[in-house]
């Protein structure tokens, strides 16, 4: 088995300098690893720091202490101390983040948004278009919307664009934060299938799922992060 993520001694405390220097400890001494082909589901009550941990794994939040080695292009790189251009390269080629929100860029069409990760990894425009169309169809997004920018789409439609973009070419590691929050049952099933397929193809998955049924269908292992709560 290949270790894709190795978390060692990670701690996070937020310090709010403009609110009297208030310190908000989140967790301390977090240690775990994730192998290729695993789906690790983060558990713990709301406010336990699940989303913060996921953002730390992505290099979006900076931990107060610890290292996170991401296996990138065959070798482990500490994403905590890596320089920005290395973090961006890791994200481009190895590490994907699926959030419940789509960051809409003005004027870019839905099809282009979904094609983009394939093009960034060197796929031909024809292949990228074909795969993007197939993914949008699978997520039941009406074809008349594909040429439009998603700024005016509903929450559920935007979320499906986001999922299509993330799963059109699954990354070796996928960090997933509540992907099914505003989806109907049929589309929720598609997302569960997409995650299972990515995992079967060798992706390592770390996710947060509030929906218990989804959680149980996706998880191969649970990590209760309440255990790392600062005493």
């Amino acid at each position, binding site marked *: 088995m290949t270790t894709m993520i*190795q978390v060692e001694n990670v701690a996070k405390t937020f310090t709010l*300098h403009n609110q009297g220097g208030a310190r908000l400890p989140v967790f301390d001494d977090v240690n775990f690893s994730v192998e290729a082909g695993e789906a690790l589901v983060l558990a713990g009550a709301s406010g336990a720091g699940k989303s913060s941990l996921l953002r730390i794994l992505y*290099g979006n939040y900076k931990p107060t202490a610890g290292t996170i080695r991401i*296996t990138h292009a065959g*070798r*482990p790189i500490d994403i905590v101390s*890596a320089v920005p251009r290395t973090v*961006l390269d890791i994200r481009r080629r190895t590490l994907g983040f699926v959030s419940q929100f789509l960051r809409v*860029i003005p004027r870019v069409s839905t099809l282009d948004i979904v094609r983009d990760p394939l093009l960034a990894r060197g796929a031909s425009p024809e292949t990228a278009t074909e795969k993007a169309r197939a993914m949008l169809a699978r997520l039941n997004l009406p074809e008349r919307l594909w040429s439009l920018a998603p700024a005016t789409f509903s929450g559920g439609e935007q979320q499906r664009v986001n999922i299509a973009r993330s799963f059109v070419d699954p990354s070796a590691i996928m960090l997933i934060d509540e992907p099914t929050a505003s989806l109907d049952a049929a589309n929720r099933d598609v997302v569960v299938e997409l995650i299972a397929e990515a995992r079967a193809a060798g992706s390592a998955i770390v996710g947060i799922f509030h929906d218990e049924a989804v959680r149980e269908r996706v998880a191969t292992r649970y990590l209760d992060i309440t255990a790392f709560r600062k005493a």
Partner: protein
Amino acid sequence: MTVHATFPEAALEPAPLLSVAGLNRFYGERIGCADVTFDLWPGEVLGIVGESGSGKSTLLRCLAGIDRPDEGEVLFRGGAEPLDIYSVPEQERRRLMRTAWGIVHQNPRDGLRMDVSAGGNVGERLMDRGDRHYGQIRERALDWLTRVEIAGSRIDDRPRQFSGGMQQRLQIARVLVSEPRLVFMDEPTGGLDVSVQARLLDLLRVLVRDLGLAAIIVTHDLAVARLLTDRLMVMKDGRVVEQGLTDQVLDDPHHAYTQLLTSAVLGV
């Protein structure tokens, strides 16, 4: 399960395009910018953010060869030999600024020749570079006008007949036509209406990505920084108080001043 040792990070490219070390600029007793040191790599887009008077525009002028710093060096690796831009003769620095660099000014009037046609504004940079074939120059100028979404029928109009947004797009065409390695932008969307800003931002985003440009962008607008830049330097009172990956600095700011900046705006 094997636990690997962490390898030292291998360089993705052989060398930085720009290396800045110990840059200081004083105006009498007052600090313009102080102790600025960083590397910029090919294809990287760096944002410099801060409020008015934070020193970000002073720093940009020092980096771009416009304003000589009191101390420090700016090393550019664009050609065979690395070039310390302030130790070479004025003439050589000017040549570099015309050919390998581009500067997009906040006010298009500072970057355009207002009494020369749109086509002339773009073509002039090619002539600076040594191009002499009139037909080819006009053809390339036309191509660039189209890329910045200015109708080809406007090629013989003067910039003063253009709207502010069009003037800014023309300035960008004038800068990019000579294929610079490095582009400096000072508040490129400042002074434009919000709807015009969005169009310009999207255009810049696509051009920077497609051309693989390295760029340094000064802005006070954190949404602009988020959309266009890979990494950020946050300046206050002439000094860099925080720097790092753009989304990390904006989403998990550590310095008191950065926390103040990011909490003062809605939804960046």
